[in-house]
């Protein structure tokens, strides 16, 4: 009775502690001396994207913005890479302080997160191919050819919602294709696979020089607001950020930043009236504060350079690709031995263990094999903190891969162990060996020899599966490829480099495995 009560108490505490421990995030930022802001470089320019001359660093108007915000809070900025659609989870679990990455102000997001006032007013710009059949919005309703026009959008974006509505109307002659990257669709329009794309104005403007075959059609439609999001209830941090946005609007810092990236347009004048209005919402001090209107900077303007080709791509990005391949190697080599150990334990437990242990072990295997690795990582990284268990991203990757692969490994070992004739165990037992000795010394070593080929196969598979860890903010080879290809459009060269690196890593393992097989005399 007493210990049941204690267990209950422990459970209650496990859920209660995070709430008790919830400190004021602004105080946390100040004491840390760092504003950790998260975004996804894969979204590309002009938001957050790898620098052309040093791809391990990020640049973009949001990077500049974050630096200024940090200045107002008297701390240093630190960028944190996350997957775009998971940024809210990073904030919720306090892995970063604020999302600053083109997040549109939507009622759904406002339910889960705390929005700041807008820092940018975006529109949706239709881009069409010069000389293409579709030239205007009107062509999407009465396409003379009679075939449906294909419009590309970014998955989950406001543009996607808008386009689906439009093409859902009864007289519409268009269909929507969802893409994961912003500039993918622009390339597809240029090559003729899509007829048009609907883009947020910053992307459309920023990347215009990269896609000379495209032209804007009509004025932007569907105005919306980019806001920053902090965790629910963090009003102190939100207010501090709002104050900074008001001050930067009034003193011209925002305008200067946006002009630098070529994304200042008429719509931004609304920012002024918004900041004026915010005096009614507790920001009176910032609205009335004396600010020195900054002079326009001496036209420091960021332009996208011409698309790099061929060897230039290898030269510019080879280093960072190699570095990311390093992380892939570390992840694989640290997680796989763990997977082998856990898997072997499970297989032995299922075959030779007590009956009561077999069912949970079978459940473990089925559960992990039957659910996506991505979800498991998500659970470890974003849901465990809810019960007070916080594992750093790197270790989440290692543990997640190890646990997931242990299920596959255990099935391989189970097959291997079952392939050993029962006479082997009997012979060992009849010599007076204990069951444990017989399994460890006679059965397992023989099974290990049998399973080398499938295990190596699994290791190579794990090598490539390491790419899934980008969900927990790690940037390994595949994610790096996506990020760079999105911002540079040098997809072919980067793809060749990525494939080459994976091959260079996996082929030696096949060779080593063959050697081991020969040495152990698997045919015995």
């Amino acid at each position, binding site marked *: 009775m007493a210990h049941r009560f204690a267990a209950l108490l422990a459970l209650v505490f496990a859920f209660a502690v995070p709430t008790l421990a919830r400190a004021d995030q602004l105080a946390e930022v100040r004491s840390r001396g760092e504003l950790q802001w998260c975004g996804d470089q894969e979204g590309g320019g002009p938001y957050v994207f790898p620098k052309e001359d040093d791809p391990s660093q990020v640049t973009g108007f949001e990077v500049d913005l974050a630096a200024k915000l940090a200045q107002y809070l008297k701390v240093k900025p630190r960028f944190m890479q996350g997957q775009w659609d998971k940024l809210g989870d990073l904030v919720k679990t306090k892995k970063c302080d604020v999302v600053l990455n083109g997040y549109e102000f939507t009622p759904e997001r406002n339910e889960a997160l705390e929005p700041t006032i807008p820092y940018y007013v975006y529109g949706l710009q239709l881009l069409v191919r010069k000389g293409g059949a579709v030239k205007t919005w009107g062509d999407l309703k009465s396409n003379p050819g009679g075939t449906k026009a294909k419009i590309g959008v970014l998955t989950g974006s406001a543009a996607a919602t808008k386009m689906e509505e439009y093409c859902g109307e009864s007289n519409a002659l268009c269909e929507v294709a969802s893409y994961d990257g912003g500039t993918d669709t622009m390339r597809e329009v240029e090559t003729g696979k899509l007829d048009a794309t609907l883009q947020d104005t910053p992307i459309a403007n920023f990347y215009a020089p990269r896609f000379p075959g495209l032209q804007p059609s009509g004025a932007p439609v569907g105005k919306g607001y980019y806001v920053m999001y902090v965790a629910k209830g963090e009003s102190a941090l939100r207010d501090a950020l709002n104050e900074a946005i008001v001050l930067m609007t009034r003193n011209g810092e925002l305008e200067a930043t946006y002009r630098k990236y070529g994304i200042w347009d008429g719509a931004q004048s609304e920012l002024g009236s918004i900041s004026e209005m915010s005096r009614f919402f507790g920001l009176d001090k910032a609205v009335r504060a004396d600010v020195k209107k900054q002079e326009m900077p001496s036209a420091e303007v960021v332009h996208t350079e011409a698309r790099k080709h061929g060897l230039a791509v290898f030269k510019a990005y080879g280093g960072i690709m190699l570095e990311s391949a390093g992380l892939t190697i570390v992840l694989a080599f640290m997680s796989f031995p763990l997977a082998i150990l856990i898997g072997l334990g499970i297989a032995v437990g299922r075959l030779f263990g*007590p009956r009561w242990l077999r069912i949970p072990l079978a459940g473990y295997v089925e559960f992990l094999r039957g659910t996506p690795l991505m979800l498991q990582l998500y659970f470890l990284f974003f849901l465990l903190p809810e019960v007070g268990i916080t594992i750093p991203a790197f270790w989440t990757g290692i543990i997640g891969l190890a646990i997931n692969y242990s299920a596959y490994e255990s099935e391989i070992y189970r097959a291997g162990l079952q392939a050993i*004739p029962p*006479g*082997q165990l*009997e*012979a*060992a*037992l*009849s*010599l*007076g*060996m*204990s*069951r444990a*000795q017989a399994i460890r*010394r*006679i059965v397992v*070593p*023989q099974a290990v*020899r049998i399973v080398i080929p499938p295990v190596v196969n699994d290791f190579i598979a794990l090598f490539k599966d390491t790419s899934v860890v980008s969900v927990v903010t790690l940037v390994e080879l595949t994610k790096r490829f996506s990020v760079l290809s999105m911002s540079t459009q040098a997809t072919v060269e980067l793809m060749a480099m990525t494939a080459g690196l994976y091959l260079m890593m996996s082929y030696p393992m096949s060779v080593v495995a063959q050697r081991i097989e020969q040495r*152990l*005399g698997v*045919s*015995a």
Partner: protein
Amino acid sequence: MITVENLKKRHGSLEIIKGIGFNVEKGTVDAIIGPSGGGKSTFLRCLNGLERFQGGSVTIGEHKLTPETDPKRDAALLQAVRRKVGFVFQQFNLFPHLTVMENLIEAPTQVLGESVESARERAAKLLERVGLEKKHDARPKDLSGGQQQRVAIARTLVMQPEAILFDEPTSALDPVMAGEVLKVMEDLAKEGQTMLVVTHSMHFAREVANRVHVFADGFDVECGPPEALFGDPQHATTKAFLQQAGKG
């Protein structure tokens, strides 16, 4: 040495052994012959705790196996029984991932805690005794069947069991190889090794065994010294079986 009392064994509804009991005296050789499916091998496996049984008991020295003996719970008891009684399998069951020498020293070093040097020394003598002194470093797969079975016998002997159970040790071998193995077994018998041998070799039963049992249909239908049993069989089953065996 080994006392079996009224042993009964079932596989589901199929009765395999329907009540068999006898003693194996120290220093003697008992042979079990009889038609296939008569329960010979199963009987032998029950004696070593490789199979559970549903009735009767097996007493080996101070140890007693009963239907209640549980392989997990009574692991220590079974280990003690197996230390006293060795087992030689029809299919040899050598450990393929180990060399001949490693096969021999595995149990002494792991079970008895003997040093590798001492175990190797004893193993080398036994290998010489079974005529395989040149095969220390061979792998089982590189040996003939007869050689493998001789290694298996040496592997059993190295544990110095008080008795050895042989489960059709020559059935998987051609006559020449079977002869090599039977020679080794005959030598062991002469040295006073207690043995219980399930065999198809009428020659071995007649020439080496002190006593012969005929198992048929789950019973020990007839038993006695080989001269009497082969010379003047009493039971109809025995007569039929010997006639059949004689033809073969």
